[in-house]
């Protein structure tokens, strides 16, 4: 393993920022540290960089413990949330800074910077100051500056947070392409699940100082290990006492589960139903047009469930009664999440069939 964290704990006063955090990444991975604010993800990133010191635990980089190593010796490229570009230096000087401290010969610096500038596509802006750049350009400069000294690993703290929504999408793709081009191991912090899912090879989900689950985006989506991951990744409704639903009568009392939109099938009036015994009545609570689908909230046995509905199918109206079938749910049991299928369906509803 190229990066390895072993039981890292850190507290700030009374606040436990991270509690025995462990995970590991292979060389060349682009990983996302995903979690809500205050979940410890930025602290983890800053501890890898050496900007914070863990109270206990060990951090390994390429087999070597870097826990006690000075930040400047770790070989880390860091992109700050607000870029932290040197305001009184030009783009060229910003990128050159790390090379100068390494006492790189002048000619070599120039060559390297030109190479980086053409990589990020800002050859013409070498003489500009950060205040004269747009958010996206600043981001690119910060990226080039972090890469200039040839770091072993690239860390990015909320790299897209300060950029407006339109450019953000573009930059995500750009960053993804750059990192796969350079094949540099990278970790970025984000609180936006769609960003993590789109960009990262692996996602480390953090919640109140702990790692909930580590895995490929598809793995986290399909097999969330904990209730938190089931709720946080993808859109789902959490309900309690779901034993009331047809097909889930075996659920323990008072227990909770999460229902994804695609776990629900609606039958409008008159639509043929394959297995009559698997459906129950529901009332349409609200309808919202989302372009490709209708976003539907349906009330089923006292639960308000969200799902999608194709525009190709018979129209729905608010207040209308429909038939609802639930294929499967993520049942929460002792801090774990587990896929439970509708017992009345032939395959137990468990066949969550898609492959990437």
């Amino acid at each position, binding site marked *: 393993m190229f990066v390895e964290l072993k039981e890292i704990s850190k507290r700030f006063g009374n606040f436990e920022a991270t509690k025995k955090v462990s995970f590991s990444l292979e060389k060349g991975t682009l990983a996302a540290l995903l979690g809500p604010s205050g979940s410890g993800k930025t602290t983890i990133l800053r501890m890898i960089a*050496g900007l914070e010191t863990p109270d206990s635990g060990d951090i390994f980089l390429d087999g070597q413990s870097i826990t006690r190593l000075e930040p400047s010796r770790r070989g880390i490229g860091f992109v700050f949330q607000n870029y932290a570009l040197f305001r009184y230096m030009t783009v060229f000087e910003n990128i050159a800074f790390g090379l100068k401290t390494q006492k790189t010969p002048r000619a070599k610096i120039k060559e390297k910077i030109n190479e980086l500038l053409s990589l990020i596509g800002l050859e013409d802006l070498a003489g500009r100051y950060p205040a004269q750049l747009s958010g996206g350009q600043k981001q690119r400069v910060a990226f080039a500056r972090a890469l200039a000294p040839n770091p072993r690993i690239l860390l990015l703290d909320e790299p897209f947070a300060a950029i407006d929504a339109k450019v953000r999408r573009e930059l995500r793709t750009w960053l993804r392409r750059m990192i796969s081009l350079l094949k540099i191991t990278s970790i970025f912090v984000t609180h936006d699940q769609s960003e993590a899912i789109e960009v990262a090879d692996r996602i480390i989900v953090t919640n109140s100082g702990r790692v909930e689950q580590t895995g490929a985006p598809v793995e986290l989506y399909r097999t969330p290990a904990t209730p938190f991951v089931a709720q946080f990744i993808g859109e789902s409704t959490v309900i309690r006492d779901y034993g009331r639903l047809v097909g889930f009568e075996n659920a323990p009392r008072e227990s909770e589960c999460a229902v994804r939109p695609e776990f629900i099938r609606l039958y409008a009036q008159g639509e043929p139903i394959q297995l009559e015994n698997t459906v129950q009545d529901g009332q349409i609570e609200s309808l919202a047009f989302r372009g490709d689908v209708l976003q539907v909230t349906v009330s089923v046995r006292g639960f308000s469930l969200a799902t999608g509905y194709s525009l190709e199918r018979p129209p729905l109206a608010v207040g209308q009664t429909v038939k609802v079938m639930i294929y499967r749910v993520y049942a929460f049991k002792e801090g774990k999440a587990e896929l439970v299928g509708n017992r009345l369906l032939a395959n137990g509803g468990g066949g969550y069939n898609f492959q990437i």
Partner: protein
Amino acid sequence: MSQTRQSKKVIPGFGLTMGITMSYVGFFVLIPMISMALQAAQLSFKEIVQVATDARVLSSYKVSFGCSFLAAAINVVFGTILAWVLVRYRFPGRRLIDGLIELPFALPTAVAGIALTSLTTDKGWIGQPLSHLGISVAYTKVGIVTALTFITLPFMVRSVQPVLEQLSPDYEEAGRTLGAGSFTIFRKIVLPELKPAVMTGFSLALARGLGEYGSVIFIAGNKPFQTEIAPLMIVTRLEEFLYGQATAVAMFMLFASFMIMFMVNRLQIRAARFVEN
């Protein structure tokens, strides 16, 4: 040990800058202040009370407090008007006045002292017309108040000015759209915003006025029981080599200044609570 500390203080230079800072503060502030505390500790409580409540000393406290208070109060009025005019209006000479506000900080106090004295004696440019009205300024308490008003003017203006600059016209416009008149707007909308700054300026002016020496001694005349200020009492005791007595008077003054500074801090903390972000 150094390893953990280094990694805690990520940015380099902690040892160096902290070392210089502590030695400097220690040498120039702590050691001298402690020396005074030691000197004060050698006095008996009775002695301290005796010196500090000596009739002449007591009257000097009264003069110092009374005149500083009055000067600070005068500046509440004129300092606020000046700040208001400088922020709100554009007129010829505005920049000049803005630059001159800090004159009392830049002009040596002794120069201010002799200049104000020569202006306000019975033969001075201002003193002469006033003397016909039976008012004498130089060598009276009025003179002390004049000198202290001069010295402490910048505190008030520079406390109020930034607050007025930050005050968004939106508030006043909102008031106006609700039908409030100019005076009501000022009283209900502007004044509450200014209050903490005015209080801070007042306290700073008061503290500075209590300690002020250079500008006052020339204009005061220094008549015992009438125009002697508290700092002068320290100087006279020192000139008689009565170090203990000088220390006793100083300790009382320090106590008063600290109380005022404490108040200023509280005011600033309170003011900060209303500021967003």
